[in-house]
């Protein structure tokens, strides 16, 4: 079975799925109130895109996710490098605490954070940043820790200084793990952003979906879910592309998922 065959089958399958989505609700096999036909969802999408609503909410959501993700990455990378590379004893002392912190999922955090920061943008950025921080930190620590000792010894015996060793050897060796951590963090950022927007916001894609649910605009729920999925996949793909510059090879498919989740086993 060659690649071309598989692609043809994929296209046929996609066509069947889309056709079923359109016809089954229309024929009443599936209740159209629960799963509206594809054309209805497309109409809702066009309507939301036409009046600029979708673009506004998507931009707000993206901005929040990017801000939180950047905050998590900017704090998590140095934290991981410092703890993993320079202060192994401090890392041992902080490890259980960090694991416990990583367990404090944002949904419960939400109720605590709004006590301090109110219900505005700061709370959402904090929650997403918090969630992104831990995968990035753990992945960086793992990457620095598992850098090949032979490489380090060889570089040291060739007379590389401490700083040079860090920049030229440790960092590149840790890069694949760091990229994995960033991808995991981006995935989490999106999932949690939607949850945070559902719990307390007046804009954004999560709000759009919950609003549609409350007013029984079922097509809008699907339109919102579609855009959210699309954005999540695009973000993951971009990070993968970016990571491909650091990694020797870029995996795809189920194996990629397994490698990604497995290498961040702790989180």
């Amino acid at each position: 079975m060659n690649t071309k065959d598989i692609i043809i089958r994929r296209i046929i399958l996609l066509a069947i799925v889309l056709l079923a989505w359109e016809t089954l609700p229309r024929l009443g096999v599936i209740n159209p109130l629960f799963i509206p036909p594809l054309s209805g969802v497309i109409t809702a999408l066009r309507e939301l895109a036409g009046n600029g609503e979708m673009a506004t909410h998507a931009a707000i959501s993206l901005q929040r996710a990017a801000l939180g993700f950047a905050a998590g990455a900017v704090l998590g990378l140095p934290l991981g490098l410092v703890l993993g590379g320079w202060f192994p004893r401090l890392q041992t002392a902080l490890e259980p605490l960090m694991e416990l912190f990583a367990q404090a999922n944002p949904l419960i955090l939400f109720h605590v954070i709004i006590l301090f920061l109110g219900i505005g943008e700061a709370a959402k950025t904090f929650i997403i940043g918090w969630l992104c921080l831990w995968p990035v930190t753990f992945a960086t620590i793992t990457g620095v820790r598992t850098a090949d000792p032979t490489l380090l010894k060889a570089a040291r015996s060739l007379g590389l200084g401490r700083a040079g060793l860090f920049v030229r050897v440790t960092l590149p060796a840790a890069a694949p793990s760091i990229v994995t951590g960033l991808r995991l963090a981006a995935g989490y950022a999106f999932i949690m952003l939607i949850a945070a927007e559902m719990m307390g916001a007046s804009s954004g894609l999560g709000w759009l979906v919950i609003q549609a649910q409350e007013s029984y605009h079922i097509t809008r729920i699907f339109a919102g879910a579609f855009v959210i999925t699309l954005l999540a996949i695009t973000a993951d793909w971009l990070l993968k592309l970016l990571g491909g510059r650091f990694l020797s090879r870029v995996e795809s498919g189920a194996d990629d998922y397994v490698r990604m989740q497995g290498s961040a086993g702790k989180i």
Partner: protein
Amino acid sequence: MFDKIDTIKTHLLRWSGVVVFLLLWEAAPRLGWLDAQFAPPFSTVLGAIHELAADGSLAKHLVISIWRGVTGLLVATLVAIPAGFLLGLRLPVWAAVLDPFLRVLSQVNPFSLMPVFILFFGIGETAKIVVIAWVSLWPILFYTITAVRNVDPLLLKTARSLGITTGELYLKVILPASLPVIFVGLRIGAGLVFFMIVAAEMLGANAGLGWLVHNSAMNYQTPRIYAGATFIVILGYLLNRFLLALERAFFSGEQEQVDLVPARRSSAPSWRPGWRSAAAAASVIFVFLLAGGREVYLSNLANASLGGHLGHQEEAGEANVEYTCPMHPFIVREKPDVCPLCGMRLVRKSDAAHGAGH
């Protein structure tokens, strides 16, 4: 002897961070660095936990949450492992064809799907278990596909040349050989499950740890928020540790695996579980499922039948009667009140639902 002292030292060092954090938590509100109304000192939170434990409601919420998680995980496992075997072994072409579809489905945000699940299954137990199962399905499925594909071909050839039947090949060779990797999928799935239980319980439930936190927040019982949150964090941590330990106990001997899972230090396990302990574990889970199911059923029943007892005030914390605003259904209070958004009088939740014709 020195080893022992060293281990103790390492343990002390490991947990010193947590101890310092707890001390800070206790000191900061007392010294006025943090507002004690927002961040009550740790001892107050312990008091709240003790209170909850004393009237038995903590145990109830715990059992209900765990029951939901275990049931959802079980459903996901029963679907994903056979599906993974089928796709990985019998239909490799279809596995390749379906791969992008499965990946897109796994990327669909569970929160954006929640409204759809609620449409299909109502806000009862089914919707929660479906959401939980959906989330944990994907890691288990992807890991199973990868695992069964990467079984050592030498094992397969040897078994086949010894004249094994297909059924036996699956059960006696492929399943044991792929189990270590499948288990990692299960562990990741379990982590996600735990997280989704809390989310599902916040969006609509009448019991469970997620509900406890949500309800306390709605009633401004700050120590209880922290009490519930502490429990969720500790439970999640223990679950993760337990599964890691189980993984090590089961599979540390066969670490060669597929090189997908980062190798851990392979200390010899002190205890190797066999079929007998597996059967014991299975029966414990089964008994728990029955007992937990009864608890969930009773809790839902109590909640539904309370519609009849007008004026019957529950003590705070048990609070099965809820009041909601007819215009803003997300405003839920334990006592009759007015809506903070529009000033309308809150109505009993069940009455509001009947009035809307559901």
